[in-house]
């Protein structure tokens, strides 16, 4: 077998290992689903009435769902960081390093495994949103585009959190460091339109990466205007994925 075949087969071995681990320790996947579902319930049933009136008509769950769906992807990134960090702090990574296996397999296995885990969580959260009354205007093409966007965003967040997991000394800090990421959608257009925020916050909300992503997702699912948000979202995702990838790789090879 050639080096490339080994790289693929080693990555698949690592992926199988990570999926098996996720299966054995479902609490982590579970937490990725529970947090966004609780948010959905909180914002739909508890705050929905008031917030819905504030955004000027329309069903509030339709407004908030795209934002919460994105939060699911950020919750997944916490799980990635913890997973990578746990592996790095246990002895097994040193075993892998002393074996003649493809150098990239360890990270690839983690990232692909986490992406799959997060996608499962995304499907469950979207299902929960439907159960709470969310209705989408999207056709098959829009759904496909939304799925593609979510996949890309998840990949972006996963590479960044893989890097966070690698530099974190303990699993606790690995789970805390991505928390700001989880809250970033709040200071965007996830819950309320940024127009209603004070100037500084509004400026931040408009230019941070989550806002164009949420706007694109909302546009695809609800038929609101996307404008140039789609391109900005893709640019952010491409840039941040590359950054996360290069950063993670360099940290992993350095240690």
């Amino acid at each position, binding site marked *: 077998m050639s080096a490339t075949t080994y790289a693929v087969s080693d990555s698949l071995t690592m992926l199988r290992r990570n999926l098996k681990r996720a299966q054995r320790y479902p609490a982590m996947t579970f937490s990725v689903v529970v947090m966004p579902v609780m948010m959905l319930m909180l914002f739909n049933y508890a705050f929905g009435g008031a917030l819905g009136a504030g955004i000027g008509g329309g069903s509030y769950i339709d407004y908030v769902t795209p934002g919460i769906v994105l939060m699911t992807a950020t919750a997944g990134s916490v799980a990635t960081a913890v997973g990578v960090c746990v592996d790095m702090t246990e002895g097994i990574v040193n075993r892998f390093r*002393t074996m003649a296996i493809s150098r990239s397999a360890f990270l690839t296995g983690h990232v692909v495994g986490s992406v799959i885990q997060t996608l499962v969580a995304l499907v469950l959260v979207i299902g929960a949103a439907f159960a709470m009354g969310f209705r989408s205007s999207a056709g098959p093409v829009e759904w496909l585009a939304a799925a593609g966007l979510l996949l890309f965003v998840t990949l972006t967040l996963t590479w960044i959190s893989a890097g966070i997991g690698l530099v974190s000394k303990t699993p606790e800090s690995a789970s805390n460091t991505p928390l700001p990421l989880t809250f970033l959608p709040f200071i965007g257009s996830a819950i309320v339109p940024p127009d209603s925020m004070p100037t500084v916050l509004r400026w931040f909300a408009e230019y941070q990466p989550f806002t164009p992503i949420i706007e694109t997702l909302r546009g695809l699912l609800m038929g609101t205007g996307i404008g140039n948000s789609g391109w900005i979202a893709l640019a952010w995702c491409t840039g941040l994925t590359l950054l996360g990838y290069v950063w993670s790789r360099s940290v992993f090879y350095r240690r």
Partner: protein
Amino acid sequence: MAAISAVGLTKSYGDKAVLRGIDLSIPAGTVFALLGPNGAGKTTTVEILSTLIPADAGSVQVAGHDLVREADGVRRAIGVTGQFSAVDNLLTAEENLMLMADLNHLRRREGRRRAEELLRRFDLTDAARKPVVTFSGGMRRKLDLAMTLVGDPKVIFLDEPTTGLDPRSRRTMWEIIRGLVADHGVTIFLTTQYLEEADQLADRIAVLDGGRIVAEGTAEELKRIVPGGRIRLQFTDAGQLDTAAALFDYATADAEALRLDIPGDNSVITVKAVLDTLDNASVRAESLVVETADLDDVFLQLTGEGAR
């Protein structure tokens, strides 16, 4: 042919020199023990030889491959069982072994056969389907070594393989290690802080202290470094001990244990001389033991405070 040879190995972290020029030549099919106190640089040496970290200087060949230029060749030939268990806690013992089989690119059937054989050899068959989380320290260490063996390594590094194990598990581990050399002809590079372990297992022992090898040889050769032994007298009261201590120039008294150690060997003349001296001073000792030098003496003489 040497399975491991190293010349002028050095490593520093910042301005702290961990290894200050290590030379090694370990013949294939032998057990080599690197003996030293905590912080002597044992783990660092293993980490360098097993391709985990680069050395600052020096050249190393492992199993005929250059450590830097042919790292993957080295990795194909070695197996490493480190100080901290390198097993996947969420997988079962069998899954851990199959993971190793896959990463060694064995065919499915060959991998399964190898896993079963290793489980049997290490007495883990009954626990094969249980998650490793539930394993005792001894079982975990055995699985760890079994995982190392899946790839059929020619050179095995064992970094403190019995640290933290109870005496029974330690003996089991020793048996396994002896079996590896006898049945499979592998070369073993072992680090330990237990003299008994080095004495029991190793063909050759090197004593590492402060990043330098301060002595090297067989257990017998090392024991010869420390001249003579001691005559140990046991007393029943402190007064007698003090009187006796004053009679011998180089004696060391242990007031707590009421013991007096006098340098000397087991020749009749020496023992008689000691007894006569006691007799003339009318000192009553309870009992007498003659101890010849053991590795502990070598270790204490060569390492730490005593050596500087």
